[in-house]
């Protein structure tokens, strides 16, 4: 299993915890992202995640490796759900173990922030009013790295 993976099954965080267990670690930090029932004033019924998996796994692995190196933690993993999810379902899980807590918190925060920003995953929300739509990323407005299309076709 790679450091980052996608799952179409129900993700069980208790089971995933074992992936980062280590006798040399004194702390474990996890982040669980849950499907919530509202977004930007609209009531959400359910949602779908879709990914460009071949590139997504590579980029996700790079992010986890960056976190391990940057914060010198013992182990880190991330699993992102795909397919149809209901309110309260686990959308994403990040787990980090480390000798001390500071690095584990920092690495966990780094991984979830970078995954949301860099891994090619898209979210379609289905609303209570029957409408649906693909959600724009939270950090697009401040996204200024990488090669962006600037509409040179004009």
């Amino acid at each position, binding site marked *: 299993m790679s450091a980052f993976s996608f799952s179409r099954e129900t993700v069980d965080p208790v089971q995933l915890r074992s992936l980062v267990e280590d006798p040399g670690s004194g702390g474990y930090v996890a982040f669980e*992202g849950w499907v919530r029932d509202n977004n930007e004033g609209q009531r959400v019924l359910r949602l779908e*995640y*879709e*990914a*460009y998996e*071949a*590139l997504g796994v*590579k*980029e996700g692995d790079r992010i986890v490796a960056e976190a391990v190196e940057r914060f010198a933690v013992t182990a880190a993993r991330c699993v*992102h759900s795909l397919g149809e999810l209901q309110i309260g379902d686990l*959308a*994403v899980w990040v787990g980090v173990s480390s000798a001390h807590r500071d690095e584990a918190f920092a690495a966990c925060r780094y991984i*979830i922030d970078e*995954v*949301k*920003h*860099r*891994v*090619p*995953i*898209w*979210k*379609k929300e289905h609303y209570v009013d029957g409408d649906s739509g*693909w*959600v*724009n*990323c*939270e950090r*697009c407005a401040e*996204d200024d790295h*990488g*090669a*962006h*299309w600037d*509409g*040179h*076709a004009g």
Partner: protein
Amino acid sequence: MPQIRVEYFAILREHVGKSAENLDTSATTAGALFDELDARYEFPDTARMKVAINDEFSDWNAALSDGDSVVFIPPVAGG
């Protein structure tokens, strides 16, 4: 003409109505291919689009070779 495989995801997949196609194109760069397909399909929300060639992020100016696989990547929304 080189043959390029283009895969579509999410909003682009729904807009185009298919998840992939093989194209004979005279476009020599990823950006030129995007222009060609944008003219054909009128992609939604083309701002801040990125591109991948053969499953790696790429520059829009990158040259295309016969058999390459191209994916246009709209703003992402994981997590």
